[in-house]
């Protein structure tokens, strides 16, 4: 088995033609084979030869441009490009390993036709076959937002074969930022934003940033290739950025007061995508688990919860949801749920428009100015069961209310738009501070005048 990888790496046709491949192993790596090991190698080679012989049978027909009429009236191609297939990593995998329903004597014919509703349905069914060999990747995929969407019945969410042609899989290194494939197939706008960003440009320019060779991230570096996650939830995005920009806290600490809090509350893109539209995003946070609260399977969509609250006479604002959600938890125990607020950029596209360091926002006044908060959009978001964030607009005043002191207890923005009750109290205090001296002075003058008149 020591050499099985080396043998399988040889293009299938060469492996069939000759056993000389084994003699190409560098001298330094050659080891003495025991008779038992030689027998194992011989058996493996024999099994491979049998598989390829069987595949040859399939390819005799399927190398041609054949199609099948599906139930939905569309045609599905049955063609497998022989050369591409045999030279791919799957070249030594027998066809029936995946197409197990079509083994010997089970091949559909005109009399024993297999009905396929649609190509999508067939692909969803076939997706399971990848797990046989790629168990780890498949498990990662099952935990992804893509898989969750497929489970919800999405007809667009990608399956394994959407990114990896099963009959001509290519190596991971062939996924390049310049093309953006396969992600760009679905996320074109986001990829275009990425391409124009400091990250995309660096990659296009040979991964050179400030005369240094730095590996610039591509989609999968941040989002992962199989366990694809929605980075907009909580502070996942920040953790992702810091994974490469390790000294980010140190650099900000040199000029930014309360660096830790800023990095906690303000998403990186808010300052580093300077032209992106910003929002205050309030989300429900599970304090016990230490993660943003996720909707459970069977939960009413948050809009419906809002409508229900409004129907019961509630205001439908996020504080009401907090109250409604705060009363229970999955196991029936009182839930420790609070609202947290973060500054985010408006969209996924904006989150990818990262500019160079010199363009980043560095003036306090860009956020800390009177009435600034009033101009910002406020959204309320929840994590859906599939892991994606769902946001909807909320009243802009919601962060400035007295109730917010308790409900959004971890968020305070200096100079933004302080709550009005405190403003009134300040004016009152100022008025008292001015009126008491003036009043006392005037009273004294009046008494003195009165007494002076009395003396006369």
């Amino acid at each position, binding site marked *: 088995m020591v050499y099985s990888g080396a043998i399988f790496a040889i293009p299938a046709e060469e492996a069939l033609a000759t056993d000389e491949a084994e003699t190409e192993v560098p001298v330094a790596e050659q080891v003495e084979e025991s008779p038992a090991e030689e027998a194992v190698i011989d058996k493996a080679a024999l099994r491979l030869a049998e598989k390829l012989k069987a595949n040859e049978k399939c390819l005799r027909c399927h190398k041609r441009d054949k199609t099948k009429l599906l139930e939905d009236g569309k045609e599905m191609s049955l063609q497998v490009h022989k050369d591409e297939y045999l030279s791919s990593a799957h070249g030594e995998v027998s066809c029936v390993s995946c197409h197990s329903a079509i083994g010997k004597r089970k091949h559909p014919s005109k009399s024993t036709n297999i009905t396929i509703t649609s190509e999508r349905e067939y692909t969803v069914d076939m997706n399971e076959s990848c797990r046989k060999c790629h168990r780890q990747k498949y498990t990662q995929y099952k935990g992804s937002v893509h898989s969750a969407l497929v489970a919800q019945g999405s007809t667009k969410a990608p399956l394994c074969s959407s990114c990896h042609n099963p009959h001509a899989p290519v190596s991971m290194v062939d996924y390049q930022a310049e093309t953006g494939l396969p992600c760009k197939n679905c996320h074109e706008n986001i990829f275009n934003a990425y391409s124009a960003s400091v990250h995309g440009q660096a990659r296009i320019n040979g991964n050179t940033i400030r005369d240094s060779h730095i590996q610039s991230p591509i989609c999968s570096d941040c989002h992962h290739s199989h366990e694809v996650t929605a980075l907009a939830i909580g502070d996942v995005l920040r953790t992702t950025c810091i994974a490469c920009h390790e000294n980010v806290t140190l650099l900000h600490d040199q000029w930014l*007061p*309360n*660096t*830790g*809090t800023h990095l*906690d509350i303000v998403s990186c893109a808010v300052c580093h995508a300077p032209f992106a539209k910003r929002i205050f995003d309030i989300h429900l946070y599970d304090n016990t688990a230490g993660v943003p609260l996720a909707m459970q399977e069977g939960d009413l969509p948050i809009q419906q919860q809002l409508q229900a609250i409004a129907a019961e006479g509630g205001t439908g604002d996020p504080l009401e949801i907090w109250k409604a959600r705060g009363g229970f938890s999955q196991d029936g125990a009182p839930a420790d749920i609070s609202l947290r607020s973060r500054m985010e950029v408006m969209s996924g596209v904006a989150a990818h428009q990262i500019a160079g360091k010199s363009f980043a926002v560095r003036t*306090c*006044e860009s956020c*800390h*100015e*009177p009435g600034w908060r009033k101009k910002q959009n406020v959204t309320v978001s929840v994590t859906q069961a599939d892991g994606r964030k769902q946001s909807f607009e909320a009243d802009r005043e919601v962060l400035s209310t007295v109730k*917010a*002191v*308790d409900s*959004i*207890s*971890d*968020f*305070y923005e*200096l*100079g*933004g738009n*302080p709550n009005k009750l*405190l403003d009134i*109290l*300040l004016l009152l*205090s*100022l008025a*008292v*501070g*001015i009126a*008491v*001296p003036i009043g*006392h*002075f005037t*009273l*004294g003058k009046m*008494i*003195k005048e009165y*007494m002076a008149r009395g003396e006369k």
Partner: protein
Amino acid sequence: MMSTNPSEQKQPDAWIKTKDSELYINPLPVRIWHWLNALGFVALILTGTHIRYANLFNLMSFETAIKTHNWVSFAVIANYFVWLGFYLFSDKITVYHPELNMRKFFDKAFKQMMYYGYGIFKGAKSPHKVLPYDKFNPMQSITYQIIMLLVVPIQFITGLMMWDVKRFEAPIAMMGGLQMVNTIHVLIYIFFVSFTLIHAYMGALGSTPATHFREMFTGYEEEH
């Protein structure tokens, strides 16, 4: 405990300097603390207002306001310990001893209020005789006890928490979150806005408007 009865007060000794008809009421550490504190409070109120209503007055940049507020805060905190150290390690602590007899306290406080509300205008003498070991009238006494031992420390603590939110994350959470800490800090700031104005005005209620100010610089007060 020292008696608050003027007749039982310690007689001026070598430590308490006298100058003709004046008593040495405020020793140097108290005067230094008072005036540094006064400057600090004014600076903190101005920069605090600038921070809270950012750029409303366009006096300085937000960054300068934050930095000034932080530095002045630390100076005021350090200065507080000058005050605390002096009173803890000298027998002058008696000036802050509370009047525990409530009837006596309210009686004196009422007389003091009557004085400020009426007597002062017709040239009456203050019912409280200022002495080195009993310099505060009942109203000053209760006000300064609350301010120096409760309000000011709370302001320091909440300010310190907001100076480095991350470092003080746990105590902030214990107090109910950043918004709560900020609200407490702002409420005390609001109180100090009127307190500072009224305090300055009352400082001008001496025999001449400048009398008490001069006294707070020299340490000597007229016997009255």
